[in-house]
């Protein structure tokens, strides 16, 4: 809690600062010349933070001679482009916080690179005497992570494939057509968002057994082939597309599939990406359901493999090995995230309710 108090105070201080600078700048603009140009500048000031700084600069250089660059209350104005101490402080604080928050990942990367036979102890938990990939090699020797990786990739892609098809169709139907019972059916589908499939593991496990799918990748994926979240997200996105587009295509003789394929899908790309990102992230990381419906290494995904791995008796508290195994599971997605981080974050931003 202390942390967030400090943060709150910091935000408050910054806002106060900004407020002062702003009113000062506006006074410099309005006081000496009350022209339409100044008024325009002032309204521009309201637009956005980015434009604000630019406007500040112009306002200052246009209205006040270089020698008298002080605000009306006598406070010297900062040189344009200069780093304010407040800004440096805010930056340092944020940097410290970001480092602290990333500590688990930073530590595990470092710990995974220790050479063999250097046990962890107080004051000796970071780098060993050298850097070594020994832990990774051992992890790959102790468990079939390559196979697990293949299973996870297959699983995630199979689920995504079916979800994209089923959700596009359903989302399109709910957005483009009015039909009897549409609201009721939509609500029925949305219950899937309120009751997560894992909570229903007892009856779903029986269903999977009856279908004869136990211990297969299909067993892990099948319950997720229909997605309420995907349907919801795509319906929202489709509703944002002007109806005339679809109607015009219809008049031109397009059937529903052509409308969906050539009008709706291309325009809903951000929503599709958003959904794909969250689906991949979700199913790459899911543990309990795969743990229940798989038994052999042939069908086990990475997460379930890691859970088994950490419980192997001989591994105990070998943190270098544990870190390596942990990163083997997390790294592929983490690297994808670092490369496409803008897509990821925007994807999630697009998937929220607005």
């Amino acid at each position: 809690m202390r942390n967030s108090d400090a943060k709150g105070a910091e935000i408050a201080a910054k806002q106060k600062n900004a407020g002062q600078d702003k009113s000062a700048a506006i006074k410099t603009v309005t006081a000496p010349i009350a022209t339409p140009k100044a008024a325009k500048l002032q309204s521009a000031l309201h637009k956005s933070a980015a434009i604000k700084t630019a406007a500040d600069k112009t306002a200052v250089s246009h209205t006040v001679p270089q020698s008298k660059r002080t605000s009306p209350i006598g406070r010297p104005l900062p040189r344009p482009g200069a780093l304010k101490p407040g800004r440096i402080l805010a930056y340092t604080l944020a940097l410290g916080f970001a480092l602290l928050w990333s500590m688990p990942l930073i530590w595990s990367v470092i710990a995974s690179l220790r050479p063999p036979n250097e046990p962890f102890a107080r004051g000796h938990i970071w780098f060993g005497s050298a850097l070594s990939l020994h832990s990774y090699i051992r992890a790959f020797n102790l468990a079939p992570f390559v196979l697990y990786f293949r299973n996870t990739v297959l699983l995630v892609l199979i689920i995504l494939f079916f979800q994209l098809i089923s959700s596009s169709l359903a989302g399109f139907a709910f957005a483009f057509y009015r039909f009897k019972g549409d609201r009721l059916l939509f609500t029925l589908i949305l219950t899937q968002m309120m009751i997560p499939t894992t909570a229903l593991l007892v009856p779903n496990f029986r269903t999977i057994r009856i279908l004869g799918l136990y211990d297969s990748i299909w067993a892990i994926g099948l319950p997720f082939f229909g997605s309420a979240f995907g349907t919801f997200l795509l319906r929202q996105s489709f509703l944002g597309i002007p109806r005339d587009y679809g109607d015009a295509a219809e008049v031109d003789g397009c059937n529903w599939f052509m409308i969906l394929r050539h009008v709706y899908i291309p325009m809903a790309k951000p929503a599709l990406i958003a959904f794909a990102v969250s689906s991949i992230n979700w199913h790459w990381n899911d543990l309990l359901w795969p743990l229940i419906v798989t038994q052999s290494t042939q069908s086990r995904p990475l997460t379930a493999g890691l859970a088994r791995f950490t419980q192997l008796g001989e591994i105990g508290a070998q943190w270098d090995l544990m870190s390596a195994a942990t990163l083997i599971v997390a790294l592929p997605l983490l690297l994808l995230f670092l490369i496409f981080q803008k897509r990821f974050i925007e994807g999630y931003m697009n998937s929220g309710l607005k």
Partner: protein
Amino acid sequence: MNRRRYHPALPYLLILPTLIFVLIFTVYPALSAGWSSLFEHRLNIPKFREPVFVGLEHYTDFAASEEFRLILGNTLLYAVILVPITVIAALFLALWLRKKRFAAFRIAVFHPAILPMVSAATIWMFFFTPDYGLFNRFLEFFGYRGPENWLSHPDLSLMALIIVAFWKDAGFYMIYYLAGVQSLPEDVFEALKLEGAGPVTTFFRFTLPLLRRTTLFVTTIAVIGAFRAVDHVFVMTQGGPSGRSTLLLYHLWQVRFESLNIGEASALTVVLVVLLLAFTISNFLLSERKGRDA
């Protein structure tokens, strides 16, 4: 406008694939769990190998069971602590890091959301290790002299789970708030500053009400997330010590796959589903009412 260029069955056919999977894996199991919960059905006891009707016995057993009350208490405590602190932290992080120049720091705060919970929990096990674990060293720096063995301490094991979930989720929810914050009308806030409104007034009178829909969305997914949280229990505490960190879904798994008691596990499923529906629906209604008052 009533020209119909499609077969009347078309929309139904389009939703059919989604509907079938929702019916088979959500609606049917929720109902069938209710039915199965009325039977005694245990795979490891010959007498109950075939289900025997017992009515509401499982539920009356729950009411009298010390263990069940402990687990329900754990689960509620977990949700009641975790959801508010995570959501509040997410909001402050979004307000703090909303500027473009902080984008790099956002990645640092968000990345735990990409890690699988198994990985995160495994790393945090090290952090909670007594003596040399980093979390204890960190607390010690701030004067903490309490117990160090978080994972096997009766009062701290549940806290350890909450801490990991907090670390993993705060940045994730921050993204939703960031989307909300960026859609706020900037000129209103500029005007407020010029009018001399303090940051506290601005926050409570404008920012918070304008983010109401985001808050509803985030609290809803946070509550659902809290009730389905189980991965870190598997890795870190296995529900111990003596059930003090057992969450409902973990218990449900234990009853089904360790005790092989299908009847009781079905009754627990019903309890979990009722809790989930009660929390999400009341959260929604509460927010709707507040929205009308505002």
